[in-house]
């Protein structure tokens, strides 16, 4: 006998999740025992569209039907009641596919009150047998098997680590083997036919529209509240949120989570003039104009990992650390510049830039003469700067380093004539200090080692590197050691 889930239940859910009526109705009919229970249901939609929350809420409601008798349904004596149980498995918490399987068995055992031993579960075949045993035992304990049903929810299964390509199709077939089982897959964007089964119902959770977003956000009470009372707070908040949406979150961060975080972050600053007593909540436009800088600064959209000075007193006492350029030792800075040049100069131009005999030609950048220039190149070459850093071998970088070293010594000597130096610097080529510096740069990930992580040693001559700092950083570092990096850069 077909009947839709309880209308009271649906209406409470609808109020709880505005803008999701269709999805709630569809999902609850697809899992409810007396409606149209399916073997597989796929829920899909972008981040923060309420997939997990709604599934959990529906299942919770369906599994504990509104009842007046106290605790009797726990003993499963009431034959009039259908019994739906559920287990949710979060893929984000499972390290491997096997972990996922064992997690599944454990939660199914918990849901079906299985009392036997839990065996290890190496593959899906095993899972089917175990889950089948558990569900059969559970459903057999009732007279009418069809009144009991288990819903298994795989949350974020598309991001599961170390999963085999046959894993999902195998799960999809599970419902054919085990009766009274519904599997719900929550995914972001499913590939077409990823379960290799036809006719699997898909429920789409679209992104919230502006009206829905505002409706949801109006239910939040911001902190701190206005001194004049909750009504004022409510009215300012409901005007404040659309303003934020239109200025900041319309173009990026349109999901509810980032919209909410932006609103909550800016709220205290926005109402500061009211708290100070300079403005009143009533003419909202004046408040808006007074705070217009808040709406112009879109850097707030980037998530920051540092608290924005919760107590400014401590922040003023601690002195800011100087830039990275000045913290690195002299030779390490030179090595970093040399690596940048090795990454961005094509090897064939090294001759022009770094050979002693070519000093006169060095400033010409490329060293071409009028005769060699062709009228029009056949194909347009992309600038190397745009191509990003190329790999280089260690010895080429060291050769560039030893050229730079000479120039840097001269300019350092000129600048710091007053400083104490013991005359000649000791020869650093081939010294352990240089090798330490390279290893340090690599472990700070300012130099990135290419290839497998543990394939060759850091200092192996065959090891290839790529520089990981940008032009601005290198130019700053170059100036701190008295080198203009442009002079050495091709193009």
């Amino acid at each position, binding site marked *: 006998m077909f009947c839709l889930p309880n209308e009271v239940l649906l209406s409470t859910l609808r109020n709880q999740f505005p803008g999701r009526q269709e999805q709630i109705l569809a999902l609850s009919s697809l899992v409810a025992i007396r409606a149209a229970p399916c073997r597989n249901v796929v829920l899909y939609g972008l981040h923060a569209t309420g997939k997990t929350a709604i599934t959990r809420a529906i299942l919770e409601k369906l599994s504990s039907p509104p009842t007046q008798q106290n605790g009797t349904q726990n003993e499963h004596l009431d034959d009039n009641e259908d019994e739906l149980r559920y287990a949710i498995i*979060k893929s*984000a*918490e499972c*390290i*491997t596919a096997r972990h996922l399987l064992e997690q599944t068995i454990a939660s199914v055992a918990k849901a079906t009150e299985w009392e036997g031993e839990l065996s290890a579960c190496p593959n899906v075949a095993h899972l089917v047998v175990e889950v089948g045993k558990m569900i059969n035992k559970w459903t057999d304990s009732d007279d009418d098997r069809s009144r009991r049903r288990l819903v298994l929810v795989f949350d974020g299964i598309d991001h599961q*680590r170390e999963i085999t390509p046959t894993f999902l199709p195998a799960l999809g077939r599970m419902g054919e083997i085990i009766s009274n089982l519904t599997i719900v897959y929550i995914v972001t964007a499913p590939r077409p036919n990823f379960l290799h089964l036809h006719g699997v119902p898909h429920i789409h959770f679209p992104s919230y529209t502006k009206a829905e977003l505002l409706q949801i956000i109006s239910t939040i009470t911001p902190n701190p509240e206005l001194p004049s009372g909750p009504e004022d707070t409510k009215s300012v908040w409901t005007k404040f949120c659309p303003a934020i949406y239109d200025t900041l979150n319309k173009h990026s961060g349109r999901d509810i*989570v980032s919209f909410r975080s932006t609103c909550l972050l800016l709220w205290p600053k926005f109402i500061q003039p009211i708290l100070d007593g300079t403005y009143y909540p009533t003419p909202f436009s004046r408040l808006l104009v007074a705070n217009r800088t808040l709406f112009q600064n879109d850097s707030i959209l980037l*998530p*920051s*990992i*540092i*608290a924005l000075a*919760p107590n400014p007193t401590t922040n003023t006492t*601690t*002195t800011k*650390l100087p*830039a*990275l350029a000045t*913290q*690195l*030792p*002299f*030779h*390490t800075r030179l090595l970093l510049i040399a690596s940048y040049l090795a990454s961005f100069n094509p090897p064939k131009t090294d001759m022009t830039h770094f050979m002693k005999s070519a000093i006169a030609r060095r400033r010409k950048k490329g060293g071409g003469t009028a005769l060699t220039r062709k009228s029009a190149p056949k194909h347009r070459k992309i600038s190397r700067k745009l191509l990003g850093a190329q790999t280089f*071998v260690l*010895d080429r970088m*060291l*050769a560039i*380093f*030893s050229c730079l070293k000479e120039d840097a010594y001269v300019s350092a000597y000129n600048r710091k004539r*007053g400083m*104490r*130096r*013991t005359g000649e*610097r*000791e*020869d*650093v*080529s*081939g*010294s*352990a*200090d240089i*090798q*330490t*510096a390279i290893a*340090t740069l690599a*472990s*700070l*990930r*300012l130099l990135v080692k290419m290839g497998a*992580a*543990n394939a060759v040693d850091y200092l*192996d*001559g*065959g090891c290839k590197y790529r520089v990981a700092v940008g032009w601005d950083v290198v130019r700053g570092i170059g100036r701190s050691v008295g080198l203009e990096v442009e002079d050495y850069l091709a193009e």
Partner: protein
Amino acid sequence: MSVHDEIRSHAGFDAWDHQSAYVYEPGTGGEDAPFGQRPSKRRKVTDATEHLFTSESYKSSIGFEPLFGGAESEGCMLLREELYERYWSETELRIQSVLDEANEGTLADVSQFVNDSEVYRSDDKLPSAFIVTGPNISSQSLLFNQLSTKLRSEINGPVITLRSGDATNLKSVLKIIIRTATNQLLDEGGLSNDHNVGCKKIVVAFQDSEAFETNILVDLISLFKSWMDRIPFVLLFGVATSIELFQERLSKSATRSLFGIQVDVEQTSSVIERIFQKAVASSSAVLRLGPDVLSILMERQLDHLQSVQSFVAAIKYAYMSHFYGNALSVLCDNSEPADVTRVLEDRHYEAIRTLPSFKKHIERLVRSHESSRIRALLQDDEVLSEEVKQALRSRQKANLQLLRTIHAFQSASDEAIDCVNLYMTVFEGNLQQSDFVKVLLASLKRMAPAQMLTLLSKITAAIREGNPGMNLDGWSFEDEDFLVNIQDVERKILALSNAADEAELPVRSSETIHNKGLRTTVVAQRVQLSYAESTLTAHEKEFLEQNERVSGLLENYFTTDDPRQSLFSEIWLCNSTATLLEAFAPRPRAAVESALCVPDQFLNLEVTINSYPQRTSLHATAVLYQRYLEAGSLINMADLWSSFLEIMVDEEEEPDERAVLMQFYHALADLKSMGMVKQSKKKADHLAKVSWKGL
């Protein structure tokens, strides 16, 4: 990496590891080794270093050895050892106190953050502190050890420190986290199941977070986030570069789930300066480090590695080498100065007479024609011993004076002065010609009376109070004259500036008085320039006088002797740089290259009178290395072999090609194991040249 780690990482290494073929000998060791023991390559390496450092053999092996070619008496040898132990442990304590203090602020900040972490926890944010340590990675392990000890004693929960070396993949990291957490909980008698513990915090610290693989870090963060509703994680990240760079590396979703504060660590340079004050420039330091040694140390800090640990190690090395290698270091004993010469033997006196400073002293005496004194010093040990005693007594005073000068000067000057540089200048004995004094004296000229008064009061305060950092007490009694003079000047300047104020004619600084004012007047549309002589008030005249006097006083006060020239300075001044560089700045690559170029010098081969060495003595690897250097970046194997063969065989003899081929293989294997050649992928039968000479 600490020394300890380094030794441990080499523990399982031996020359056999890189050999491609072995002779399997099942019989050896089979009798006493129990069945089922792991083969030597897979055995569990026990911590051999513990054993190494505690064993008797190790202790005796670092013991001192008798000097003077073994003729030094055992008493003196033991005395040197004892002196070293005593003075170094004193110094080490002082250094340790600085190191402990240095991280104290950071530790307090972090533990406060961990205690207040609930403030930063919201529904989707993990509370996390970013400890910006600066690029000196070696100090991170000390900091994180201190941190975990402190946090474990303060919060009720486990503290897990992760290093990038442990984190090869996600599973192994999780294993480490779970194992450490459960062990710590079991140790405390708590539950092994950390899910049940409600109020606890679990601190996970990433020591060198930049060195972690980014995807492992991101995976870990997302895992922590999904467990956040059950386990209250608090994350600590050691960031060596900057937070911006670190954040760029993480994915957006990981960034979104972190929120917390930035904690700065005191900079290496300021820690080094404090250590320098406490350990080197302190008045209680027995051994003085000379300017040459210090300049090398500081230069290395600037040029190569900014690391407190290496600075401390270098100071320790200076102490060790001084007491180990200098027989006269027995005289450093300052506990009973009257008695120090009692331990001296004949050989010591001989050694004293060869000291350069003693020779200079004799030359001085020769110039002043004190021949009887010279004879006594050269022949009579008693006289010499008296001289040594006196010199040692006077040097303590002299050194104290130098340190006082440093302190007084530092407090006198306006801008912060690099203490190390000042110390080096003073111990080179040319403070009065240095820029420091010149700048100070020049600034005197620009001073108005009020500024002059603050300067003078700063100097008197410095003399009265001393410097606890350098373990200097006030010395107002000993510099009575100078103080009286200064106070006199102070009084006069005060009086005259008061008088000038009453007369409403403010006293100008001496520079503005001397500058002639340039006056422009426009007469009939022409500009006329004229110099106006400034007129001096009576107060200003007096101020000029006092200014001159202060300038003279200070110049005199900041004139010091060169301690390196003083008699027997070799005993207490460590200024030899030769071994220091060898020990701390080795050049392995350059050494290997030069060994391959001139093997004769290293192998102790007999070089015949002919300039060309015997063919039999040719070292195959060195010969092949020469061929290698002459080749381009791609080396044809056939060419390499034929040129090698040509060199290795005599023209007259029948070439034993097989033997030479074996040598060739051997040499090539050597080059390969040194990482100089590898198989080329570009061309068949070619080798790729990997390392060039001289880089």
